[in-house]
């Protein structure tokens, strides 16, 4: 589904990713964790073909290197919510409909088929009664679900999620993760999610990767949830504890 082989990416002279290698198999739920500025969003943009690597080989959905942008129509992308202006005059339905614009191409208007699909996607994320609600009037969690519905338009095979739970309260974070997990199972989607908070998804992930300019580790959760290693990545004291059979990461000093 996705394959990076010693990939280097940068903006002009500024190097962001170096020697990144990993692979995502069809149907996997992969989570990439890393501190701010570790190159997580850049990696997603490389998969989308928005940035071209300076070195290395990238394959996405069967398209290699320069051909990677051709895979875009099979990818659903949920960007960071901070990049959209909630005051923009647009309804929840309009936002979801935008998910069809790429496949429609220039000048073609969305028709009944796209409108029905948009309504269905909103229903899937539990917002069928909010079709004509202004985007700015929705809560943070609801806005993120609208953007998730937009990512699902066009029936993607691969879902890329960029910090989907950032700026949400704990309850909304939990609800969104559960929703994403359920939708991915129902639609047999492959998911690559980047996040700060490994605890939210530790029991959902098939693989976890640690990114800090390069891929420091990439394996199954039980193998990579190592406190010494995590402390090194984040530059802070980190403990890994087990509660009710699930591993949890705790940052800072811990007193029993």
């Amino acid at each position, binding site marked *: 589904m996705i394959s990076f082989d010693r990939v280097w990416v940068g903006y002009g002279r500024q190097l962001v990713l170096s020697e990144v290698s990993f692979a995502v198999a069809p149907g996997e739920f992969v989570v990439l964790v890393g501190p701010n500025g570790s190159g997580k969003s850049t990696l997603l943009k490389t998969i989308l073909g928005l940035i071209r690597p300076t070195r290395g080989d990238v394959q996405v959905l069967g398209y290699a290197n320069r051909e990677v942008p051709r895979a875009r129509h099979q990818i659903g992308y949920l960007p960071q919510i901070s990049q959209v202006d909630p005051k923009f005059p647009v309804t929840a339905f309009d936002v979801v409909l935008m998910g069809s614009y790429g496949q*429609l191409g220039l000048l073609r208007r969305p028709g009944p088929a796209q409108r029905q699909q948009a309504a269905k996607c909103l229903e899937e994320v539990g917002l069928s009664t909010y079709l004509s609600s202004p985007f700015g009037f929705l809560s943070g969690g609801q806005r993120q679900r609208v953007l998730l519905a937009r990512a699902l338009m066009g029936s993607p095979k691969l879902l890329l999620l960029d910090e989907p739970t950032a700026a949400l309260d704990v309850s909304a974070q939990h609800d969104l993760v559960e929703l994403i997990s359920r939708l991915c199972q129902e639609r047999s989607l492959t998911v690559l999610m980047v996040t700060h908070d490994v605890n939210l998804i530790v029991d959902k992930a098939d693989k976890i990767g640690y990114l800090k300019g390069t891929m420091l580790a990439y394996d199954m959760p039980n193998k990579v949830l190592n406190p010494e290693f995590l402390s090194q990545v984040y530059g802070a004291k980190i403990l890994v504890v087990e509660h009710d059979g699930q591993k949890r990461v705790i940052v800072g000093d811990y007193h029993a």
Partner: protein
Amino acid sequence: MLDLWQYAFLQRALISAIVLGLTCSVMGVFIVLQGLSFVSAGIAHGAFAGVALALLLGFNPLLGAAGTALLMALLIGQTKRRGQLNLDASIGIVFSAALALAVLFIGLMPGYTADLMGYLFGNLLAVSTTDLWVSIAVGAVVLATIALFYKEFQFTAFDPVMAEAAGLPVKALFDGLLVLVSLAIVISLKAAGELLVIAFIVIPASTAWQWSSSLGKMILLSACFGVSAAVLGLVVSYYLDIPTGASIVLILILFFAASSVLAPQRRTVRRKRGLEVKEV
């Protein structure tokens, strides 16, 4: 009121006001939503420098305005892409350069520069038949382009990163938007003037935004505010014998002030009533 429209120059002024009000206010929606109001000011200053250059060298001022406005639009687009400076800082630099050149060209002009002052403050009553037809033709091109690329402009204004990820030509659309603004400014220059055309672009859209929950509604309201202010401003200026441009802008300001007071209450009421539901 009827006797007002028996004069040909007033008929031309009325049609010109409607065309400019409509073109600039619809265009302004995409400018205001993307926080590009300062860009329109920069392009308008560039257009004025072009008029000064044309009058100095003795060629058609509209051609001069179009040339420098488009050059300004391309420079701004290029600056945004390179991303070495904030967009507003780079527009400020280009904006100052255009104004300095305009002042320089005016300084080099021998004698009285009444023609140039007309382009600075505008004069709807001096619009010729040729000016009017040029405005109608260019205005139609601008509005038709916006209608054709409505969904693309909507998507890139709302979420440019996602629009690019979906495969839309975001850079070309941004440059295209700047070219459309340049054209709208150039056709408005003689009638509205360099200083007032910015008001025509920014104020109706900003007023409409306060009432709008969808882009279509915002465009419709912006067009209504722009056209009605243009017509009302012309009528008021005729009866009170005051400058037309100033009259139009003051009416636009009045619309904006009234909306600032009234619109938020309406939003609160809507929130209290709960979110409406519409069938697709």
